[in-house]
C-alpha cells in the first residue's frame, strides 16, 4: 500500500494488505447492504481490510466528508456509489492525488474523477428490461408513472431517459404520466405512491427503478384498494419483494445480483490499488469466482445482464 505520508497507518504496517473502503449512497439501504456484503467477501478473499462508511441521507455533501476521511486515512481504494456525478468530483480527485484508487459502482461520476466504473448492466439493458416488464404486465397499453430515487441520481436518470425513448418508439399506447422522486426514503416513497394514485386515478402501473421505491410502492398498493388494479415493477431485491410477489401485488421485477456487483467492484479496486491494472481500456483482471473481466471504453466494467425475478424463481434467492 502506498498511503503517502499518512503517518504510519495500518496499511503500511501490514505490508501488502490493502485497505478498501466502501461508501454507499447512504447507510440503511438494503441494496447497498447486499452489495457491500459482496465487497466484504471479495476483500476477505484477497486478504485486505474492509470498512464501510456512509452518510445517513443520500446527499453528495454527506459523501464528501467520507471521501475526505478516506484521503486522510490514506486508504488504498475507495469504492463508492455516487450521489451526484459532479458535486463530489473535487473531493474524489483530491483523494486520487494522495493515491487512493477510486472505483465507482452502481451510480457513476464524471469519468475524469474516478479510475473505474463497475456497471451493473448496460443502461440500455436495464431500461429495456423494465420497459418489457411493465409492458407485459399492462398488456402494452395504459398510463404508467415512475417513482425514482432522488432527482439527480445519475443512473436512475439515464435509465428513465432510455425508458422514455423506448416507450415512445415501441409502445405508442403506453403513456408516462408522471415522474416523482422518493429520495430513497421509505416514508417519502410511500407517501409519493399514495399521492401518485390519488392524482392519477387511471394509473395502470408504477415503475420504480430503485429498490427502496419499489418496496414502498408495493407495500402501499398491497393493502390498498388498488391491489390487483395497479401493477408495480422495477428494480428490487428478492427479500424485500418476496411478500408482495407471493401476495400477487407484484408479478415480476428485475435486478442484477447486487452482491456480485459489490464483489466485482472490490476485485476491481484490488487490481487498481495493487498496480495490476491502470484502468485503461482493454486491461483485464481476475475477479475471484466471477472469472475474468475486461475494462471497456471510459474505464467501464460491465457485470452482466439484469435478471428477472418472479413467483417461480424468487424462492431460490436470499439477499
Amino acid at each position, binding site marked *: 500500500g502506498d498511503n503517502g*505520508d499518512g503517518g504510519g497507518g495500518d496499511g503500511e504496517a501490514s505490508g501488502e494488505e490493502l485497505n478498501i473502503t466502501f461508501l454507499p449512497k447512504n447507510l440503511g439501504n438494503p441494496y447497498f447492504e447486499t452489495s457491500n456484503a459482496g465487497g466484504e467477501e471479495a476483500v476477505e478473499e484477497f486478504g485486505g481490510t474492509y470498512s464501510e462508511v456512509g452518510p445517513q441521507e443520500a446527499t453528495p455533501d454527506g459523501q464528501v466528508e467520507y471521501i475526505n476521511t478516506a484521503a*486522510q*486515512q490514506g486508504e488504498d481504494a475507495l469504492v463508492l456509489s455516487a450521489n451526484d456525478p459532479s458535486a463530489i468530483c473535487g473531493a474524489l480527485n483530491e483523494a486520487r492525488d494522495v493515491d487512493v484508487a477510486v472505483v465507482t459502482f452502481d451510480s457513476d461520476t464524471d469519468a475524469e474523477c474516478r479510475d473505474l466504473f463497475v456497471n451493473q448492466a448496460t443502461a440500455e439493458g436495464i431500461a429495456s428490461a423494465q420497459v418489457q416488464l411493465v409492458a407485459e404486465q399492462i398488456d402494452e397499453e395504459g398510463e404508467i408513472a415512475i417513482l425514482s430515487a432522488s432527482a439527480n441520481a445519475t443512473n436512475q436518470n439515464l435509465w428513465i431517459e432510455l425508458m422514455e425513448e423506448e416507450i415512445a418508439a415501441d409502445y405508442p399506447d403506453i403513456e408516462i404520466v408522471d415522474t416523482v422522486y422518493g429520495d430513497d426514503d421509505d416514508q417519502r416513497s410511500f407517501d409519493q405512491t399514495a399521492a401518485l394514485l390519488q392524482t392519477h386515478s387511471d394509473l395502470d402501473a408504477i415503475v420504480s427503478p430503485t429498490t427502496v421505491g419499489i418496496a414502498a410502492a408495493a407495500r402501499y398498493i398491497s393493502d390498498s384498494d388498488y391491489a390487483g388494479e395497479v401493477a408495480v415493477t422495477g428494480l428490487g431485491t428478492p427479500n424485500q419483494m418476496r411478500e408482495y410477489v407471493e401476495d400477487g401485488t407484484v408479478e415480476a421485477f428485475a435486478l442484477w445480483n447486487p452482491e456480485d456487483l459489490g464483489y466485482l467492484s472490490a476485485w476491481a479496486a484490488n487490481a487498481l490499488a495493487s498496480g495490476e491494472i491502470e484502468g485503461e481500456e482493454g486491461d483485464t483482471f481476475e475477479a475471484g469466482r466471477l472469472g475474468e473481466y475486461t475494462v471497456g471504453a471510459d474505464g467501464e466494467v460491465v457485470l452482466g445482464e439484469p435478471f428477472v425475478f418472479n413467483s417461480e424463481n424468487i424462492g431460490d434467492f436470499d439477499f
Partner: protein
Amino acid sequence: MTAATRAQTRASHGAAERSGDEARTYAAYHRPWWFRTFISAEFLIIALLVLVWIIATTSVDNFSGPLTVRYLLMDIAPLMMIALPMTLVIITGQIDLSVASTMGLSTVVVGILHVQMGLSIPLSGLLAILVGVLCGVFNGFLVAYVKLPSLAVTIGTLALYRGIAVGLLGTTALTDFDQGWSDLATSSIGESRIPAIMIPVVILILIFAVLLHFTPFGRGLYDIGHNEQAARFSGVNVARSQMTTFILTGAVSAAAGIFYTLRFGNSRGDNATGLELEVIAAVLLGGVLIFGGRGAIHGVLAGALLIGVLSSALRLEGVTVNVINIIIGLLLVISVLTPTLVAGAQRLRERLSGPAAGQDSAPPTSEPPESPDSPAQQNSTPHKTAPHHESAPADSASTPTATP
C-alpha cells in the same frame, strides 16, 4: 475634560463638603487575573478542546496527517461563521432556528442565478446575501417589532425558508459551477494546510468579537439579555438591536451557503439540513447562556472547534456519525447541567455539615439551613412576568451561573 474627571472634581467637592473624608477608590476587579482567565466557562471548553486535540493527535491514526487540519477547517467553516451571529442572538435571549434553512435557500439562489441564469458568481453571491438579509429582516421584524417569541417565529421560518428552497429546485441539484470559483473555495492559503476560506472566516471572527465585546452595541446586547426592560430604560434601542442581530444571522448564513455551494459544487434545496442544531449546540457548548446575557466569542469558537475535532477524530477512527451525535448531545446536556450539579453538591454539603434545621421543630438558634446566597432563594420572590415574556429571566436566576 472628560465626564470622568468632572465627576472626580465634583466627587471630591461633595465629599469634602459633607464629611471631609477622603474619596473612596475601588479596585477594578475583585478577582485576580488568573482567576478571571482560568475559572470561566470559556476556559473550561478551551481546555477540553486542547485535551481532545492532544488525545486525538497521540492516539488517532492519521489525525496528525497533513489533510486533517484542512478538511476539519473546511468542514466547520459554515458552523463557525453562523455561530458568530447566533451568539449575538442568543446573548439577547432570543434564538434563530432558521439559519440552516437560510443557508439552503442561499445555495439555491446562487445555483439558480449562476447555473440557470448565467450570472457571475460574485453577482449571484451578492444577491444571495441580499436574500439572506431579507430572511433576517423578516425574522427580526416579527421578533423585535411584532414582539412574537423567536422560538415560534423561527420554527416557522425554518420550514418556510427551507420550503422555498426546496420548492424552487425540487430535488434536482445544480452542479455546473464555475470551476475557477469552486477551486478558489477549496484552495489553501499559499503552501500551508489552512484553507483559503479561513481568511474571510477570521475577518468575520474579528468583526464579531469587536462588535460584541468592544462596542456600545455589544454592551447593549448583554443588557437586553439580562433584563430587556432595564436596557430600554438605559436608552438601548432594544428593537433595533434585535433586528440587527437577526439581519446579521441571515446575512452570514447566506454567505456560509455560498461557500457551501462552491465547496461541494452543488446547489440543492436540502443542503445543510439540520445545521441549525449543530450551530446552537456549538454556541451553548461555548458557554453562552440560553437565557441570554452571558457568553463570549472565544468560547463559541472553542465550542465549534470541539465539535469539529471530535467529529474528525471519531470519523478517522471509523466511528460513524451516530456516536458523534451521542457525544455532542451528552456534552451539551452536561455543560448546561454542571452549574446545577455544583450548586446541588454545595447545598448538600452544607446541609450535611449543619444540624438538620428547618424540620418540624427548628430550634431557634439553628444554623441557616440553606446557603445564604443560594440563588434559588432570591428567585422565589413572587414577581409577575408579563404573559408574553419568556420565563427566561426568572429561570435564569435559578440556574446558578459560574461567572467568575
